[in-house]
């Protein structure tokens, strides 16, 4: 029994030492945090968000290193879960070496987590969060380099209308992101004269039988799903197995090679599967050829969607810190100055475009894509066909 106590005391002591070791930080270390789901169903995309940022840091942190800073990446796993994201955010905020955050994949995580960043004046550049609320709160600290769901949902509806579709059934995953975009899709569909036969939310991940019964009975020409691929692909596959031959339409949450892994050939049958996105496949951007090659060489796989955007987000953050540090006489810049420096960038050249933020933190003009799934093989996901590309300014 005595041995057991000694063991407990010793392990506590070791942990205490470790924690103490973490506390002592070098004043010249600049850390940039990433937050994305590194584990769980969305980890394929989330990990490449981290990898994209890591690549950018390795290639572009030269000027800061020349000023005598040590630049480090602090990767956090938000698990696609708001609670975890906020807990991480509290840790991030309390580490004075962290000057900015690249991140979040899920709007539902970014929105509560960024309240913490806002309170601490910490800049957050998002590569992937499309919910309007991300920027509509008007926080100086929060900017994004992707489009918005109110536009994206409408783009999806306009595409369906262009294909001559007259009826739709709309589902969503009850998250801020999924329900939001589904509502924008529904609103635009109704304005365009597409009959919305049903609108429902579900958190189901495996058994869509009872959800599909009323949908199949209603015989919509398109089933729209607002949410992530890990639900959408299962839903689509089960709908096909039940004999549905209409079109599937989803959003940028569908953009993951895992969607093909789950859905397989079922996505290609009938009227096929399309999704709108704010981040085209890397091949859609002329500047990404080198990025793709470097990424493949370093991480041994094709970059997932948003990896290039994450690279750009990191580039923006690094440039802003550099500008702020120069203004602060090559000393460690204040967090607030970094946030201001992000917004001060004009026509910053990235690999997926040139970036200028408006007063809310949206891009002055963002790209929207409609992509058709052309293969049931996950390896060919990045070769999906781009149906159309649109440049649209955010609503003011």
């Amino acid at each position, binding site marked *: 029994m005595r041995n057991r106590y000694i063991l407990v005391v010793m392990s506590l002591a070791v942990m205490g030492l470790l924690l103490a070791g973490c506390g002592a930080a070098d004043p010249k270390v600049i850390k940039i945090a990433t937050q994305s789901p*590194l*584990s*769980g*169903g969305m*980890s*394929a995309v989330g*990990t490449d968000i981290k990898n994209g940022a890591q690549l950018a840091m390795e290639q572009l942190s030269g000027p800061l290193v020349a000023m005598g800073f040590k630049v480090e990446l602090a990767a956090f796993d938000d698990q696609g879960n708001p609670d975890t994201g906020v807990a991480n955010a509290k840790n991030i905020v309390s580490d004075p070496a962290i000057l900015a955050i690249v991140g979040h994949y899920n709007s539902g995580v970014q929105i509560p987590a960024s309240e913490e960043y806002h309170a601490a004046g910490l800049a957050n550049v998002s590569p992937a969060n499309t919910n309007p609320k991300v920027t509509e709160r008007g926080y100086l600290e929060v900017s994004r380099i992707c489009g918005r769901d109110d536009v994206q949902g409408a783009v999806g509806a306009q595409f369906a209308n262009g294909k001559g579709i007259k*009826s739709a059934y709309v589902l969503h995953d*009850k998250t801020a992101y999924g329900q939001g975009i589904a509502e924008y899709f529904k609103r635009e569909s109704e304005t365009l004269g597409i*009959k919305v*036969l*049903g*609108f*429902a*939310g*579900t*958190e*189901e*991940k*495996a*058994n*869509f*039988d*009872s*959800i599909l*019964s*009323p949908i*199949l*009975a*209603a*015989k919509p020409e398109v089933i729209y799903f607002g949410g992530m691929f*890990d639900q959408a692909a*299962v839903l689509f*596959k*089960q709908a096909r*197995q*039940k*004999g549905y031959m209409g079109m599937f339409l989803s959003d940028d949450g569908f953009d993951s090679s*895992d969607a093909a*892994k*789950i859905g*397989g*050939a079922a996505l290609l049958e009938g009227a096929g599967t399309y999704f709108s996105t704010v981040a085209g496949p890397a091949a859609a951007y002329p500047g990404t050829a080198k990025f793709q090659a470097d990424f493949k060489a370093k991480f041994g796989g094709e970059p997932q969607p948003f990896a290039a955007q994450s690279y750009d987000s990191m580039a923006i953050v690094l440039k802003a810190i550099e500008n702020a540090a120069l203004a602060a006489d090559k000393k460690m810049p204040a967090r607030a100055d970094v946030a201001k420096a992000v917004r001060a960038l004009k026509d910053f050249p990235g690999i997926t475009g040139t970036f200028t933020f408006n007063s809310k933190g949206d891009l002055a003009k963002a790209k929207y894509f409609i992509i058709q799934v052309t293969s049931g093989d996950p390896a060919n996901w990045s070769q999906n066909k781009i149906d159309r590309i649109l440049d649209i300014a955010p609503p003011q």
Partner: protein
Amino acid sequence: MRRLIKSDALREIILPLGQMTVFVLGAGALFSAVMILFALLFRGSGADKLLLDTQGVNILFYTISNLPQVLIDGVTLGFVYAAIALGYTMVYGVLEFINFAHSEIFAIGAFAGVEFLILMDKIGLLAGAGTYGPYLYLTLALSIGMLTAGGVAVLIERAAYRPLRGAPRLVPLISAIGVSFALQDIIRLVESLTTGQFYRVIPTFGNFDERIPLFSFKTSSAPINVNIQVKSVIVIVAAMMMLVGLNYIVKATRLGKAIRSVAQDRNTAAIMGIGVNGIIAFTFLLGGALGGAAGVLYALKFTRIDPFVGFMPGMKAFTAAVLGGIGNLTGALLGGIILGMLESFAGAYLGTFTMGNFGSEYKDIIAFLILIIVIIFRPSGLLGEQISQKA
């Protein structure tokens, strides 16, 4: 019956098959009748007008034309629930406590079976399996799922429940909840070791996705085809075979007699020379194996599994066991079928009848509301708690 069929063994096989048929047909007829009654009541209502407006059919026609598919879905789901519910009920029968870790045993079975199929797929065996090969591999996957889940169930019993045998009844219950959470995260840990992803997708193989056309009837608008997926047939047939097998073991073998005697009175059984601990472990093995097989069938039917996949089916199967009368094997079967039907009916019709105000996401609320009502009027379940003949 006793006179018609001489052999006890044969009777224990035919009787449960008869029961299943009666339950499925009875529950199906009852639910269909209630639904048609609702449809008649709703004629001329807003929901009716909305249907006429959007789909050009009235509510009665809509209800009836969807019935066959809803029934098939309900029966399939019902058998999965029944197979899981038996695990809860058997353990309750012998130990009088709820084994909350059973939902994770279900998940472990699912993962073991699916991992085996993924491995076979990687080696390339699944693709070239021909017509009957896939059934062989599925049987193998089922066996592996059953063995793994049964083995884990026995281990859990040994590690977390047996040391608490003499403790008050709440104590093993808390232990079970603890085991449940621990197992969830252990599965998550093990599955995310290789790729960082803890969900798995069952490989597509064989003709399981095909649909067998049953019948079609002509209507004024379009002909309605009713069909059943091969995998649904497999789920139903496999579950039926397992239920019959279990019933046979419990009712017609010496081991089964030992289980029943331990359930009736553990101390007296021990005096009579029955190895109580061994019998309890065997009960866990049986219940766990059934749960594991149900897990593989669930994965086959619904494609994707994650470490938390057991929670909802486990919750519902537990409810099904209580609904039928916990400790009662026939009750678990009846409870499972009723719950599966309730869920399927609520999911399919709720949205239409409430004009989209309450979509199919409210199906569980309706299903559980009805359960509360049943339990209020029959606290010991539909078939009653079998105190004298538990398990």
